[in-house]
């Protein structure tokens, strides 16, 4: 916590690795939520 984070630099993009990792994980989670099968109960209508 006392040391500054390392930064990812690419052109105008300047973002800390912790933030970059969190955003990357969020994108992965969103993609997984779209395709992962959802457990279905028997009491759903159409």
């Amino acid at each position, binding site marked *: 916590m006392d040391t500054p984070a390392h930064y990812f630099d690419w052109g105008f993009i300047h973002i800390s690795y912790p933030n970059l990792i969190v955003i990357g994980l969020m994108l992965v989670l*969103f993609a997984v939520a779209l395709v992962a099968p959802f457990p279905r109960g028997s009491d759903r209508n159409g």
Partner: protein
Amino acid sequence: MAELTEVKPEMLEGSWTLRVRNTVDRVLPMDHLLPHRQPYYVGSWVYVFGVITIAALVWVVVSGVVLSFMGPQWWHASSLGRFFNSLHFWSVQLFFIFMVLHLWGQYFMAGWRAGRAATWMIGVVIFAASILTAFTGYLSQQNFDSQFIAINAKDAMNSAGIGAFFNVLNFGQMYGLHVMLLPITVTFLVVVHIVMVRARGVVKPIGAEGGKAS
């Protein structure tokens, strides 16, 4: 002593309580408020993001109540206090992560369709109020970090011309906003948001067939 009079139907026409009750019954019947069945397209993990956001908010509020009751010395110096401090911090992280995932899901689903524009806009206001709550939270930590943030933020507030009445160096003002006004605002708007979702049902995905909530 006034005599009891018989209630006639024409007398009820002017009753505002009756009008409110009838409106609530029409707009938000109990099978909408607490449905036991959902359309088939609700069977997707995308719809879970909003619920996880609410769950995170509950933890934020519960841990925040404990922190405000016990005070800064407790949350900085004792192991249990540091645990609740961390619980508050990490549940806020989860709240924002899943709120943004919920936002992405509703954006790509065009969740404002079919009369749901107000629901979307209230969500936008919740997002903005949550950011303000988080910022005042960083100012309420009572450590060197919060002092550093406050002094740097003061320049930004002054340059925007709001430093006179939104003084980030005024701990009492920031703490009051963080533990009282803003959490009540966020919680109230979340309740309104949920009730509006329940009144119309979740939005049908683009191109989906069937289902009662169109």
